[in-house]
């Protein structure tokens, strides 16, 4: 164990010595990797910030059934009753909005009151609002109900209030797929950057590697400093990327806060959880080590 620790300590010393010999090259690599790693992190921050908003909005999806203007209250009540009696577990609430109640409600608004008074009679139809249980397939469920109710007597129009939620969900799905692709591309960029750096380093350390082998160094001993280099470069890059993303979210949040106030809501972008960031950091280190190992194994066959 002590010997194992000593070997790692030596590898770390060698790594730091090599990095200090060419600090600008090391720092440039770290910055390039950090900038590349900001992209998926920023995307993830946006995604995880928007996702709960979409989930919250879709928590009470509503369908509004507008009756024809000449549909009687009795017909509307009958449809309301039939929906209530269907006892479908996905239907949480069914409410009939009488057209006179609706007009009364509108009259509380001065502008609407004047408009309604100018009309000879109440132009509003009876309406039924149906609240559905929110689940992952709510948009599809709503569509099925709507297509069924459109065929009922006296129904003129069925409005799916969840349609925009469906669109938002589709958009988020798209963003998620896009983010996965961006992450994969960034991972390849990081892989290539570390691979090439380690290749250059391995070639410049040819003599040292040859001497180490001559005096009995194992391949692990030869590779270890390069693995540290790859891990350190990507680890630092990821840490800087987290810092840069946190900094970038600040001005974005100021702008978003102004916008969300106009919608009478509070919304802010935030970094993924501490655990997710830790996993991100470790993944970057593992990626760096893997790339370095691949490169050093390929470029020290002499």
């Amino acid at each position, binding site marked *: 164990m002590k*010997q194992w620790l000593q070997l790692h300590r030596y590898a770390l010393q060698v790594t730091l010595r090599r990095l200090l010999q060419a600090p600008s090259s090391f720092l440039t690599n770290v910055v390039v990797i950090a900038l590349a790693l900001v992209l998926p992190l920023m995307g993830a921050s946006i995604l995880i910030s928007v996702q709960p908003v979409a989930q919250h909005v879709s928590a009470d999806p509503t369908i509004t059934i507008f009756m024809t203007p000449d549909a009687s209250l009795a017909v509307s009540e009958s449809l309301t009753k039939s929906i209530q009696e269907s006892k479908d577990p996905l239907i949480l609430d069914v409410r009939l909005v009488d057209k006179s109640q609706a007009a009364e409600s509108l009259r509380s608004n001065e502008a609407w009151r004047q408009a309604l008074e100018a009309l000879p009679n109440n132009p509003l139809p009876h309406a039924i609002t149906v609240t559905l249980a929110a689940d992952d397939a709510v948009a599809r469920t709503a569509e099925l109900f709507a297509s069924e109710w459109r065929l009922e007597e006296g129904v003129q129009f069925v409005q799916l209030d969840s349609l925009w939620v469906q669109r938002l969900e589709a958009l988020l799905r798209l963003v998620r797929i896009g983010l996965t692709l961006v992450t994969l591309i960034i991972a390849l960029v990081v892989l290539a950057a570390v691979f090439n750096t380690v290749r250059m380093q391995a070639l410049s350390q040819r003599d040292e590697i040859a001497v*180490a*082998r*001559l*005096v009995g*160094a*194992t391949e692990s001993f030869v590779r270890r400093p390069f693995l540290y280099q790859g891990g350190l470069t990507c680890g630092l890059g990821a840490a800087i990327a987290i810092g840069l993303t946190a900094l970038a979210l600040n001005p974005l949040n100021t702008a978003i806060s102004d916008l969300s106030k106009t919608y009478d809501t509070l919304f802010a972008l935030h970094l993924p959880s501490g655990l997710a960031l830790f996993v991100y950091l470790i993944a970057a280190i593992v990626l760096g080590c893997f790339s370095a190992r691949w490169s050093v194994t390929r470029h020290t066959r002499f």
Partner: protein
Amino acid sequence: MIEFQHVFKSYASGTAILEDVSFHVGAGEFLFVAGPSGAGKSTLLKLIAGLEPANRGIIQVNGQRLDRLTARARPYLRRAVGVILQDTHLLQDRNALQNVMLPLAVTGQPNDVARSRARAALQKVGLGGKETALPVTLSGGEQQRLAIARAIVNRPALLIADEPTANLDKDTAKRVMDVFKDFNQVGVTTLVATHDEDLMAQYADRVFVIEPGRFRDFPVNKTT
């Protein structure tokens, strides 16, 4: 210590270097490998050190058959064989002490132990006051002795040197050979490739002469 049985070695061009060479070297022997340039002296030493494989035949070093040695086990054999190549292969960006500490770092020795053993090795080869000197500041003879210190610091059972006195004047060459002799006297089997007949006559127990297509093994009458 070293056993060759019907060993053949040729280069990719087809040039045969060693043909059906067999010999046995016991522990503690002091041998020279002589012959004209390009005859295969270095190749023989590299075969013994496991730096090159034979085309045919069996080579055993320190009780291990080299053709059966796995890539994983090869470094451990090299730790038992101190190798000094014609080009000393010293690390130019590290001082003398750090160069000698490398074989100990490879085996995971703690820093303090490595440092004291490296200092002792430098003392042994007469470079006691040169710990902090970079190789480039040392003379040819001192560089050779530094390479020897690096080769012996792991206390190998076998020491192999390829033309260690090639670029040295007579006195320095003798000092370097004295260092080898000292190690040989404490039981380290020593093989030295050289052209220098005077040194051979003075130090060798036995000489291998390699000439194109021919390998001879005979004792030498020592004058000292």
